[in-house]
């Protein structure tokens, strides 16, 4: 039998927590799991002391569950065995001419003013589609950095990777996303 206070957490904060998780994990199933784990942990630990609002306290637990979920996702394919994202791997050279000067193959385009762009629904939709096309690990790491706002130290500690590796992966994520946007948004 669920007691009423615990039941209220799901009723009152379930959707909020779900949206918070979805914004960071993007996958509805993973987001649902994170919410479930959060409420379970909340009930089992009973550490809520009423010093903060329940929602703030639950969100604090959820943040850890989100990191756990990202870590699991990254572990499914260990980085050490993944040559794709190691420094100086040939893939990054698709963007630069091998002429000694390493100039851009295609000069980045001017996307205009940020304010205007961020208000364009279509731009944001295409960006989401571009994120779907990134290797899942790169997308996770990118979100962990940009949306979850984990700092580099936290990312490296939680995911057990070196700073250099994190920089390379974030670089690749950014290169991939901007290229995809130039093809599918600027090039419409």
């Amino acid at each position, binding site marked *: 039998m669920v007691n009423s206070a615990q039941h209220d957490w799901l009723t009152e904060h379930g959707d909020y927590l779900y949206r918070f998780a979805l914004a960071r994990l993007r996958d509805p199933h993973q987001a649902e799991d994170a919410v479930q784990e959060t409420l379970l942990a909340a009930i089992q630990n009973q550490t809520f002391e009423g010093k903060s609002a329940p929602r703030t306290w639950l969100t604090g637990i959820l943040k850890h569950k989100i990191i756990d979920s990202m870590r699991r996702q990254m572990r499914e394919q260990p980085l050490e065995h993944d040559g794709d994202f190691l420094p100086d791997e040939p893939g990054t050279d698709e963007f630069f001419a091998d002429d000694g000067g390493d100039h851009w193959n295609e000069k980045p385009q001017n996307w205009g003013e940020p304010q205007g762009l961020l208000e364009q629904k279509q731009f944001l939709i295409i960006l989401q589609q571009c994120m779907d096309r990134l290797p899942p690990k790169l997308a996770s790491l990118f979100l962990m950095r940009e949306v979850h706002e984990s700092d*580099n130290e936290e990312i490296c500690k939680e995911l057990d990777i070196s700073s250099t590796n994190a920089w390379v992966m974030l670089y690749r994520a950014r290169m991939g996303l901007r290229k995809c946007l130039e093809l599918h948004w600027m090039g419409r």
Partner: protein
Amino acid sequence: MLSCKQASRLVSQSLERKLSYRDRFALFLHLTVCDACTLFSRQIKLLRQAVQRIGRNVEQDANTVLSDEARKRIADKLGSSPGHLL
């Protein structure tokens, strides 16, 4: 003088850490003469703002809710949690 490849890496890293004086100076010199890398720098800063905007939109979208099935799955799980025996 940095190549565009080196410069673009430093631009990306500058969003992650404080670059050394030497790197910052080299990057500054490169960006004063290189339109392409300057545009790249603007693009990736914009990407950061854009994914944060998408995240905020998801967080604030009242139409995004746990489905009835998901809610039931969670409620069932919570109901069987040993915590309730305490």
